[in-house]
């Protein structure tokens, strides 16, 4: 059933967020640590495990893939609901801090990729 795929995806997301929250509160902060990343690992792990045991019916896959396929429209909706006005009227300091941070980060990424970012072939 297609929906099994969606249900597994939902279960992995919620479990990941819960684990991230627990890690966060263990460190005494209110933000979750890596919830989405943990959920991704759970999804990769469970689907691999299920298909190795022959329990992952091919009909389940579209229930996951559909959500992965529509993330661009979802990101467009996210962009449209950002506080872009807040970023623009935040004043020179906020603007300069944001720009400096991004410029430095791009420089750092370029350096790190040049050093480590080639595919191991």
């Amino acid at each position, binding site marked *: 059933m297609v929906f099994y795929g969606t249900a597994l995806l939902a279960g992995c997301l919620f479990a990941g967020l819960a684990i*991230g929250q627990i890690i966060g509160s263990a460190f005494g902060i209110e933000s979750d640590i890596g919830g989405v990343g943990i959920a991704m690992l759970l999804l990769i792990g469970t689907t691999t495990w299920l298909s190795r045991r022959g329990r992952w019916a091919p009909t389940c896959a579209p229930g996951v893939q559909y959500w*992965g396929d529509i993330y661009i429209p979802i990101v467009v909706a996210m962009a449209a609901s950002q506080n872009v006005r807040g970023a623009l009227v935040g004043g020179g*300091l906020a603007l*300069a*801090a944001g720009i400096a941070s991004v410029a430095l980060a791009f420089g750092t990424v370029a350096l790190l990729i040049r050093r480590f970012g080639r595919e191991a072939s």
Partner: protein
Amino acid sequence: MSAALLELVEKYALVVAFALVGVVMLVSYQASRLFTRGRVHGSAIAIFLGLLAAVVVGFTTGGRKGVADLPLLAGIGTMGGAMFRDLAIVATAYGVRIEDLRASGVHGVVSLVVGLFVAFAAGVAVALAFGVRDPVALTTLGAGAATYIVGPVTGAALGASSEIIALSIAAGLVKAILVMIATPALARTIGLDNPRAAMIFGGVMGTNSGVIAGLAATDPKLVPYGAMTATFYTGLGCLLGPSVMFFLVQFLAGSNG
């Protein structure tokens, strides 16, 4: 008649959002094909249109949620909110090769730590240039240069003033939006074209929305890798901000003052 129609739009807000965003996607992808011969990716155009709409509506309504502040477009806020976003992003991990993650795990961790220090340093340096000297304010602004969540969380933990916290959120927003726009333009120059590079990118940039939207407009295949590392950035930043970063700033301020 029109009142009933408006009521219907508000009642079925999410359905209206799906249809509307679909039209935006169609227009953007056609524009990409016809006007740029595919050189500017359709998703980059669509994300830019989304940001543009958010600015226009933001200045009209004075709200903080972009187009979602209009009752008729509230569904866009639901569709682009954390719940659907996280569900879709996790789904992109389906089909990711475990070997790719395993081979690049160390690079991801290193880039996270490097990225956080770079962002804090940039924020603190700019704040110093603007004449800020208070260690709490400096740390909060440095945290804002990491992400718009690390800023307020750090500021709240350290007891920063609400003006400083607002500034730190604004700095994080500027960063997220700049990353969305600059990534597709700079991707080729910096060598952002494989899973490992995407993991490094996600770890250094850290701003979730910026990384996801930026990679989406660059190469959809890279999204899960960047999202995987970026998701640890905000949490780690909230952990280091009020502790390690604050002590560092205090130490440096003390030794100079």
